[in-house]
């Protein structure tokens, strides 16, 4: 009984970690129709930004906002230099961001080398019966939930959220009511990247910064967004919990390979029955 509870809790925490890594991708895809294959490298960017900040003596908790800010600035530059020239050309965007992903990976190898020191996980754990679980990964459940609520609120209720949606739906009309569409789009992309940077930083104690960390995330994140479908935010939450959580349960009973097999098999199965994503008939906006 205790074992089952401990497994469920740690699986929920793995699913939350996956969701944290996915939300930025979901925002950029859901709002702008841009599939950012460099999303994983933005996570890496955030992780290295936070790592470098802590090495300079900044407390870990403060290194997170620094990482978010730096990733947002970098994301804004990428939007201005690359993405804005390619709106409405999904495949070209994918190709361009894939190229960017390779370039960023190489840059990280050159600057930081292939192995880098982890930072210690805050050493606290709670006991469930005879099992002991580290607190920090469990905290990620709360982080994922607040991130989801915060982003949902920002995009559906705030004035910025309305402007962002208007600017991407009918750009010329958005301008005609006074919205500076291109600035708004830059900000939206930067926010998506900032969320990736946040993921890299907040997950740093769990997933150490390495140049190739992006690849590990981007495939699963990408599949979650695809399975989620048009209602990207709520859909991603559900598919992250179902697919990520399920895979994690399987891997605790069997092996992590079995967990991955479950993840990809479930993706295939869901896309077979919901080719447009599980949320294709839902009625909310995001």
């Amino acid at each position, binding site marked *: 009984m205790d074992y089952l509870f401990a497994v469920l809790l740690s699986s929920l925490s793995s699913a939350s970690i996956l969701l944290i890594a996915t939300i930025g991708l979901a925002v950029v895809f859901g709002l702008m129709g841009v599939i950012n294959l460099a999303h994983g490298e933005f996570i890496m960017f955030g992780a290295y930004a936070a790592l470098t900040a802590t090495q300079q003596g900044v407390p870990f908790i403060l290194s997170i906002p620094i990482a978010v800010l730096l990733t947002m600035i970098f994301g804004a530059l990428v939007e201005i230099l690359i993405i804005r020239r390619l709106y409405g050309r999904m495949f070209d965007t994918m190709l361009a961001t894939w190229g960017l992903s390779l370039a960023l990976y190489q840059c990280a190898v050159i600057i930081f080398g292939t192995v880098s020191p982890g930072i210690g996980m805050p050493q606290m754990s709670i006991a469930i019966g005879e099992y002991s679980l580290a607190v920090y990964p469990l905290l990620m459940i709360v982080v994922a939930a607040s991130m989801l609520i915060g982003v949902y609120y920002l995009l559906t209720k705030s*004035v910025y959220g*309305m*402007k962002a949606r*208007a600017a991407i739906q*009918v750009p010329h*009309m958005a*301008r*005609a*009511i006074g*919205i500076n569409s291109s600035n708004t789009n830059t900000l939206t992309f930067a926010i998506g990247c900032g969320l990736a940077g946040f993921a890299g930083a907040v997950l740093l104690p769990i997933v150490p910064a390495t140049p190739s960390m992006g690849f590990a995330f981007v495939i699963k994140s990408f599949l979650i967004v695809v399975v989620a479908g048009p209602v990207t935010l709520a859909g991603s939450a559900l598919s992250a919990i179902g697919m990520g959580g399920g895979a994690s349960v399987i891997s605790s009973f069997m092996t992590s390979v079995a967990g991955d097999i479950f993840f990809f098999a479930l993706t295939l199965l869901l896309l077979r029955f919901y080719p447009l994503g599980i949320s294709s008939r839902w009625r909310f906006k995001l």
Partner: protein
Amino acid sequence: MFKISNATGGYGKTTIIRDVSLEVGAGEIVALLGRNGVGKSTLMRYVTAEIPNWEGRVELDNALLPDTTFGRARAGLGYVPQGRFVFPRMSVIENIAVAAATNGHKPKQAVEHAMEWFPMLKSKAAALAGGLSGGQQQVLALARALAMKPKVLLLDEPTEGVQPSIIDEMAGILLKIREESGIAILVAEQDLDFCLSIASRAYVMERGAVRLAVDREELRQNKELQQELLGV
């Protein structure tokens, strides 16, 4: 108050409008008449800076308007384009609220105001704009432009594809709004009756230029001109 001087512009290398000058005073409703393809919509897009300005100037309250479309909107230029272009995956309320908020007005008040002016939007308030009928979208596009509290309102074919009862309602509301806020309205139209019911005078365009300016009485009595405009 609102003044276009020597407007010249077009698409690519093709000149569509040539040397157009016109003026709309505060609280005045002026019609822009002419058959299909004479450049009425192009003039509208020239004024909103959606197409490049080759020559000429657009002034509001004796000040030159900014060069960008969004800058002109914030300076007080409202625009209801032909084809409406509501934001399809946003609710009716959001369509109105975003226009108000962008121009520094309280979204909640703007929505309330719009619902008073256009009661037909009330039952659709939470619906996505893309699912509305053509006439409802036209009314929403008008409500959205008015939520900006513009000083000048450009209407491009507001009656196109709209049922007669709604056209009458729109005419009544435009007159009321003009009364209340002293807004200047320039309306490009094919529907002569609609123009005669709201506009005090009109410019007639032909091949990208203004051919003549007439007042309402003249237009009402000149059957020859009417027939020419209606194309019968």
